[in-house]
């Protein structure tokens, strides 16, 4: 069994050697991506919070199928967080919620935690 294992290890070695990367390249990215793209410094603090809200707004807009800036309960199925909390977000009771209303709701929830 032990001999068998060594044999397999060597077989493995032969299969892997040809594809081995040179020292210095760790191979977590395909070669085409191993030249570092120019990147702005990573966002933190207020800039990061703005990025997070922008992500959520993009998801919100995707769910807003008629692009009227407001999610109906039906459209909110595409943004389940809004669907789950619809009544709490829709404080004006107009049967639709805007992204601003979602933001206001999130701010209220966060404040209540403090």
């Amino acid at each position, binding site marked *: *069994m032990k001999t*068998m*294992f*060594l044999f*397999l*290890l*060597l*077989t*493995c*070695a032969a*299969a*892997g*050697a040809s*594809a*081995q*990367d040179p*020292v*210095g*390249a*760790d*191979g*977590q*990215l*395909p070669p085409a*991506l*191993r*030249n*570092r*793209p120019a*990147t702005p410094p*990573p*966002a*933190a*603090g207020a800039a*990061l*919070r703005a*990025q*997070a*809200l922008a*992500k*959520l707004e993009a*998801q919100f807009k995707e769910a807003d199928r008629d692009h009227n800036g407001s999610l109906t309960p039906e459209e909110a199925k*595409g*943004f*389940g*967080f*809004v*669907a*789950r909390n619809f009544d709490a977000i829709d404080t004006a009771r107009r049967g639709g919620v805007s992204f601003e209303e979602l933001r206001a709701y*999130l701010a209220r*929830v*966060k404040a209540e*935690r403090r």
Partner: protein
Amino acid sequence: MAPVTSAHRPHRTSRVTTLTSALLASLLVACGGGGGGAPAAAPPVAQQPPPVTTLPGTYADPVVYSGAPTAALQSAEERAATVQAKITLDGKALDYTATTGHLTATDLATGQPAASFFYVAYTAGTLPAAQRPVTFFYNGGPGSSSVWLHIGSFAPRRLATAFPATTPAAVAGNLVDNQETLLDHSDLVFVDAVGTGYSQAIAPRTNAQFWGVDQDAAAFRDFVRRYLAVNNRQASPLYLFGESYGAPRTAVLANLLESAGVRVTGVVLQSAAMNYTSNCGMFNPGQASCEGYIPSYAAVAYYHQNGSLPTDLSTFLQKAREFAAGPYRSEVNAFIANKAAPSEATIAQLVSYTGIAAATWRQDYSMVPGAYRARLLPGQMIGRYDARVKAPSGSALTVDGDPSLTVVGPAVNGSVKNYLQNELRYTAVTSYIGSNNVLNQWNFSHDGKPLPDTIPDLAAALTLNPSMKIMAMSGYHDLATPFYQTELDLARLGPGVVQIRNYDSGHMSYLDDKVRRLQKIDLRAFYNSASVAQ
């Protein structure tokens, strides 16, 4: 139901025969483990059909699975093997159910079947769902199945090894009751990404359509939704446990789940690579600051010079962090931009931390981990996933470019198929795809950038759920995702948001017996804790 000791400890003779053939199949898969340059997954080889068995709960899956980019199942059934089992934990019996099979993730937008996910779920206890957490585990790669976490970390059964020692050699199939299982605290679901394990796309979708940051995470979201619905677990506290690339997957997934209305109670980021552009090891040498690696370089060098980490480790590492963030950082950008010579004071500190010659540091001030691993011990290669493991250059353990992977990978990969068959009573006609070389086909772009920075995804998830708990676990000897870079990445979320835990171990820190015990203690506290976020 009676415990199934026969499933746990099959007759020795039959195991050895099956082990040998399984080992051959999975060892070839393991060659490319960790994302090196392995060939693409071979087309599936139909093996002899498994023996017909009458054991209750058995599922002999007739489906031929493929990890090929264009592969797709014509349809998928939600079938699973179910087995009642028990382990002995702290001298007491822990009874549990293991469910092994497939669930279909349907696309959230279209409602169409998208992918058939292979999973193993361990469930225990009689608590109401709302009081019993469920945790989803997955490795990374991208292209890795979840075999490492499944066989090596916190499941009720695990592979016993001497890791990081290279002797005695790890033996496939040497499974033991896991005293550090998390099953006493949470139900555990180990799930494989599309194109790995036995997970596969469903037509008209193909495997490769899930090989990208966003589409992969969306499919995981749809699997999690399905698992919770089928098992009536929507009320259960939901945890995600992702390793390596699985950590950025977790960030994207947490946001997608929260936006879909699925509450995430906590996430564990094991050896995380949250922001690909911040890790100099991802790029060709000389392109990015290696500040994130300096404390790891210092710790690893100290370990090899002294046989252990320093006794005043926290002071030692704090000084290394301050050096990295201070003098090193202030000179590295000028060096990268125009080879501006660093000050001799900084060079002297690098020499003192690493033992690597001043001339080398002057030439290669932003030294990437691959170069460091080749230079630290002349004539030897040290491990990438765990730098404690070393092997003479050119020896068998260095053939994959990482002796710490080669020393244990074949045993990990070689254990899974027999374990599924003999203990979990799930048999398949094709080989389990431990690792699939999808790297060149993976779409790494995310948020309009060519490479993923997933800290904004965590921030978005926290915006929807400020109570979401986050813990990061890293190893001091990990030269793939260095602990200090992970600290820098996660610090962007603000002070106190993330609980940081670092261990005297490597990337798969849990493979080390003493460290798995520590991680279990920390995880237990994490599950019981309230959010520390502001």
